[in-house]
């Protein structure tokens, strides 16, 4: 990386962590960044490359047992950062596999469910997805209307879901529905009749990632497919916290990639007979961005320590998700500006990151929702819902 490590953050990582980061970086450089703009143009999700991430112990990174890597949250965060240097869509896929599919099975599933799914998911042989959001219930998932009813040895599920990452390629879907008026998680296997995911194709953002709508029409699943220990909305939200954590790290990677690209360009681009990097206005942009990136790294790192110690308050995760995504968006926008006219071309990565981050700003809790989570934590007063 060409950005000086001004706060010597590398010293805060172990040799192992650095080595692991380097290997993954090489993979992303070689196998992802070279193709990302084409994939983005085509709206193509590179499933094989995504599965190859298993070799780097990305999937279920922090989970213990069941052939999962059992690494630290900081290990996990660093990997997410490297993956999102490649693309936010690819990182979204990895977040979903780890935080939203494997995590709930690990946390709330039966022994049988864990043994059946987790080892193969950790290897990337099976893909998972997570379905909570509905067309009319985004920020207020508690209002969801998908319903499960008991019928002999089965549950029958009906409803509509939206914005479900990986749904059309997933082997298993962790889906939340109301059973006797209480939110409950279920495992739905690929190909179950009545489970119909349809890809959303007209996206401008996260085009290297599958998003889908799902209609559930009398979808019948065996009773054994209930997530035994999942209790109410709280369990679903605990998955989101895992995902939000990975976002807080990931977007730093997107910011890095933009920053490096813009810095390189600014040093080479000559105007008025000198590099534009020598102009005060441009230096101001870099100084602002650099400071924000370092601050975001420190925030993510401290949060990782707290996660490893099992002490992170959900509001702490909200603070990092909100701050770091804002930071990355601002960096992408400033870098696009520095690149000038060429910044809109797919010769460069900035515009892809810029549009991707629009989704990241909105998903897993919008900026507003995290604002109000912090507000409530601080004041004890709830200003939403």
């Amino acid at each position: 990386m060409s950005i000086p490590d001004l706060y010597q953050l590398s010293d805060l990582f172990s040799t192992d962590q650095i080595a692991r980061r380097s290997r993954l970086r090489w993979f992303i450089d070689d196998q992802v960044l070279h193709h990302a703009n084409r994939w983005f143009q085509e709206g193509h999700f590179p499933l094989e490359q995504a599965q190859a991430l298993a070799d780097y112990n990305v999937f279920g990174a922090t989970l213990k047992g069941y052939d999962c890597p059992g690494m630290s949250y900081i290990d996990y965060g660093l990997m997410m950062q490297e993956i999102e240097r490649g693309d936010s869509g690819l990182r979204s896929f990895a977040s979903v596999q780890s935080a939203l599919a494997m995590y709930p099975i690990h946390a709330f599933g039966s022994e049988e469910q864990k043994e059946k799914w987790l080892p193969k998911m950790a290897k990337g042989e099976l893909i998972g997805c997570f379905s909570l959001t509905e067309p009319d219930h985004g920020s207020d998932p508690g209002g969801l209307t998908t319903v499960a009813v008991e019928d002999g040895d089965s549950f029958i599920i009906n409803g509509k879901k939206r914005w479900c990452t990986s749904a059309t390629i997933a082997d298993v879907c962790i889906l939340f529905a109301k059973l006797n008026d209480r939110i409950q998680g279920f495992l739905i296997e690929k190909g179950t009749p009545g489970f119909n995911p349809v890809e959303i194709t007209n996206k401008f953002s996260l085009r290297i990632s599958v998003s889908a709508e799902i209609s559930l029409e009398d979808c019948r699943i065996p009773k054994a497919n209930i997530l035994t220990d999942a209790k109410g909305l709280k369990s679903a939200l605990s998955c989101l916290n895992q995902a939000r954590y990975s976002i807080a790290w990931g977007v730093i990677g997107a910011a890095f990639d933009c920053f490096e690209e813009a810095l390189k360009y600014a040093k080479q681009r000559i105007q008025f007979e000198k590099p534009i990097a020598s102009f005060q206005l441009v230096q101001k942009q870099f100084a602002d961005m650099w400071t924000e990136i370092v601050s975001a790294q420190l925030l993510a790192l401290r949060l990782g320590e707290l996660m490893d110690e099992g002490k992170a308050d959900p509001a702490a995760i909200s603070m990092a998700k909100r701050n770091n995504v804002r930071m990355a968006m601002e960096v992408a926008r400033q870098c696009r500006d520095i690149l000038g006219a060429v910044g809109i071309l797919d010769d460069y990565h900035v515009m892809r990151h810029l549009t991707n981050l629009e989704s990241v700003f909105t998903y897993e809790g919008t900026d507003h929702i995290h604002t109000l989570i912090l507000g409530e934590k601080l004041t004890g007063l709830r200003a939403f819902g």
Partner: protein
Amino acid sequence: MTDLYHIDSLFSEEELMVRDTTRELVENELMPGVRDWNREGRFPVEMAAQFGELGILGATLDAYGCAGVSYNAYGLMAQELERCDSGFRSFTSAQNGLVMYPIYHFGSEGQKEYWLPKLATGEAIGCFGLTEPDFGSNPGGMITTARQEGHEYVLNGVKRWITNGTIADIAVVWAKLDDKIQGFLVAKDTPGFSAPEIEGKWSLRVSVTSDLYFDECRIPEYNLLPEAVGLKAALMCLNQARHSIAWGVIGAAIACFEEALEYSKTRIQFDKPIGGFQLVQAKLAQIWTDITKAQLLCHRLGSLMDAGTAQPAAISMAKRNNVAMALNTARVCRDILGASGIVDDYHAIRHMNNLESVYTYEGTHDIHTLILGEKLTGIPAYK
């Protein structure tokens, strides 16, 4: 958009009629197609004739088949076109400000009589070659050359980021002749001249952007634009284009604003429309204010241009302010739309991406900053 400052009443009947006719064209002919054109990355060149019919092409010029309307009327046209897509306004800004304007002001009578009527109907399309790959903010440094050989000029060099280049019948090209900047006309199909399209744009996809290559390109002597001498002449054209940009982006902002406002009134979360939440109202209130100020700035600028008293710095102020305003508005509206805002069922994200180009072209935001800075302090700080 509620016209809180009664801005409509600042315009004449005729100006409002011009706006409404343009709006009708935009609603009927452009809006239904824009989503597909954007996906395909295609400019629907067949629309040019309809623009011509409404008097949009060369709108402020007199005679030679041009409509001769006021700068504010033309501004309103630009606003309506960009309400649909910045690509349409870009096409028009190039055709009008960068091709017809220099032919009208710097051309010979023969050049005017031959080209202006065709350009005014949209039968012919023009482009403007000033920017070079290594000379964007500093066009005076250009390295494209022209030399005289008998009754011909021979052009060599490369131009970049040229709107309409590939579809143009005529290019207004700037080159150094005996070390002095000079404008020329170069017709399509002239040997040694080619104009391939730039691929891979994620912005202004409903617009043609091209390179222009001149490789021993020979043009007849009479294609020199007699009065187009020096960088100043080129900059006069840019000022025309910047005026239409300052107006146009208001249209993009209004389109985003109206879409987001409507969405906020119908999208229910926590049992009420999100438009009822303070955080959303704060965003709507701010962009409404910003649009209103941009309209007043443009209206005043148009009046100064009609009176012939607009200083270039006044145009810089409006271009810089209004594009930044529109870009911010598009971003905020994209946000209000939530997850839906990333699909092209909605316009905001397309406008947002388009405006990234508009922020950069025709003088970047920073360059206009320094133009204002020099005007204020008397000290140029470009270098």
